[in-house]
């Protein structure tokens, strides 16, 4: 892991701070650690509600307690380590050689424990969040529409929506892929595997029910 990849502030080439990706990564990581801390505490609280011990010696709350302590403990450690690293990532107003050396000396012990955004292909700034949200909304809409349209029709529409809105493909290939997926579901899952696919509540679509 190089100094540049972890975004240590200041270098002789005039690089005075971490990149946008690194800063977003570090902040999001801190939020994640805090969420783990909260989740761990919630599990511990609930574990006591489930009874940690009983007549057999071990109650249903014992194992949740162990995993809650694990999650909360590591969430706390992660939060502390990440907070110290965020301090180390802060930009140096005037990157004098002495300041750079001092900051690197401070940052070194806190940086190796963590991965940096340079390790993966995708980052918070490269992911197309609109399309991610669209894809998830379409799947949720599918779940809502299944009782009305029936499984096969709803799935065909879901595939069409994903092709057009998420993959950004034209109408013709999208319709072909959607019809292909619908046919695969109808014949493969509905007829061959005999999966009970929900039927439609609309009379004119009942011919699609398996």
């Amino acid at each position, binding site marked *: 892991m190089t100094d540049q990849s972890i975004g240590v502030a200041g270098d002789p080439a005039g690089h005075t701070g971490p990149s946008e990706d690194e800063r977003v990564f570090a902040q999001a990581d801190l939020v*994640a650690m805090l969420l783990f801390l909260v989740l761990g505490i919630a599990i511990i609280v609930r574990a006591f509600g489930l009874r940690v011990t009983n007549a057999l010696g071990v109650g249903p709350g014992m194992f949740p307690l162990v995993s809650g302590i*694990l999650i909360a403990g590591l969430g706390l450690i992660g939060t502390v380590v990440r907070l110290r690293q965020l301090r180390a990532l802060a930009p140096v107003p005037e990157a004098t050689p002495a300041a750079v050396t001092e900051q690197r000396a401070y940052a070194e012990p806190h940086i190796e424990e963590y991965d940096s955004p340079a390790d993966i292909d995708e980052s918070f700034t490269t992911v197309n969040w609109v399309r*991610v949200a669209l894809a*998830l909304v379409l799947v*949720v809409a599918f779940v809502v529409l299944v009782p009305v349209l029936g499984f096969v029709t709803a799935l065909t529409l879901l595939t069409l929506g994903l092709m057009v809105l998420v993959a*950004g493909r034209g109408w013709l290939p999208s319709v072909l892929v959607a019809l292909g997926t619908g046919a695969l*579901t109808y014949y493969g899952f509905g007829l061959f595997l005999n999966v009970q696919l929900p039927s439609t509540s609309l009379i004119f679509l009942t011919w699609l029910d398996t």
Partner: protein
Amino acid sequence: MNTLDALLNGFAVALTPENLLFALIGCLVGMLVGVLPGIGQSAGMALLIPLTYVLPPAGAIIMLASIFYGAAYGGRITSILMNIPGESESVVTTFDGYPMAKQGRAGIALSVTAITSFVGAILSVLAITVAALPLSRLARHLGPPEYCALMVLGLCLVVALIDKSLIKGVLMIGLGLFIAQIGADPVQGSARFTFGSADLLSGIPLLAVIMGFFGVSDVLLTAGRRHAPGTMAKIERLTPARKDLTDSAGATLRGTLIGFVFGLIPGMVAAVSTFASYVTEKRVGKRPQEFGHGAIQGVAGPEAANKSFEIASFVPLFTLGIPGSAALAILVSAFSIQGVTPGPSMFTESPDLVWGVIASMVVGNFILLILNFPLVRMWVQILRVPADVLGVVVIAVSVVGIYSVNNSLVDILLLCLFSLIAVFLKLLQFPLPPLVLAFVLGERIESSFRQTLVLSGGDPLTFVTRPISATILAIAVIAVVALKVRRRKPVLVPPQGVDTPAH
């Protein structure tokens, strides 16, 4: 029944026309998921889980097992032709495979690796045949504390060997254990973390976890992106020269041995065996300077190790009931669907099934050799399928597949939730294999943990006072300390210019 009779009986099961067909389907799907970007071995197996409901037990397991080892054959094609490793264990194959392709020897690299993979697999099946029965007898002497310790060892090794932060790895174990606790408590049946929902009482479905954390989240991460067509080397001559085969013979045998030994360890990561094989070849090779520039031993050894590892990783599953990877965890789920509990009792309770699957590994690898030697050009054509269209199909098929397991629309909403969580976890470099393994092992770890405490009158020290469980736990601690704490650099660091796959 002695081992030879049992194996012959296994061949009688594996060679029935219907099981041959299931092996062929599994090999084709395995090759497909290995070749195509965005669908891993685990996702490919998970997608076919619904099929296992209507198949006979042997056919279902043979098909899923064929996907498991077929994917490795597919993964090497992209490693050699495009410098893109499909899975972490294929990273090593790019080191010399891609340089060979650039020298016009892509066909030789593909055919030699097909042959070495085949040899590695067959030798490992022979070794399994000899070792499995004695090991299963040994495993029957283990009690709940030893089982619990073994599963903890498996999880510790996965965390220690993965190229990610220790804190994040252990956090993922905690999260996986927590998700496994949602539903009815395995001993008394009390509802835990169900928020009053009857749908959650039966627990979180494995398929929603696998497809959410591996399949669909990968599609979401690259949503809307059209991958620029990468450069792909041309395949010219396929038949290797005698020198190619003699040069790779030693590497194949060493790789097979390394892969087999590593594969026997529950929780071991396949990439470790391929890296170990590569390093060994470089060390024993007469011309180490050629490594990284197209040395045939650099692809032959690791590919043999990879196949050998995968076959050997069935040993902990069959003898101890412990899956070493997310993909094998899916196989456990398939066994459960068929009413079979993986573990030492399989050899006495379901001999036809277990020996049938072992025999099918020989049959499956013959099929894969044919699919990979004369038919390799066909697979190269499949690489031209657009990744974004494939992604849409993956989401649609996941939705149908998940619904078909429990006929529950709530499971599809869980898929959405896990996919979203996985997107953030992947962006934040949390390793997901420990989460899935902890989820799969969670209920069994809890049961053995609670049985141990009940048997010992609530004394947790029993884990460290019983010699076998103490030894296993000591190995787990030493592994984590040696691999993670003392050595702060990541263990599996690929050379510069090679992207590490997401999982």
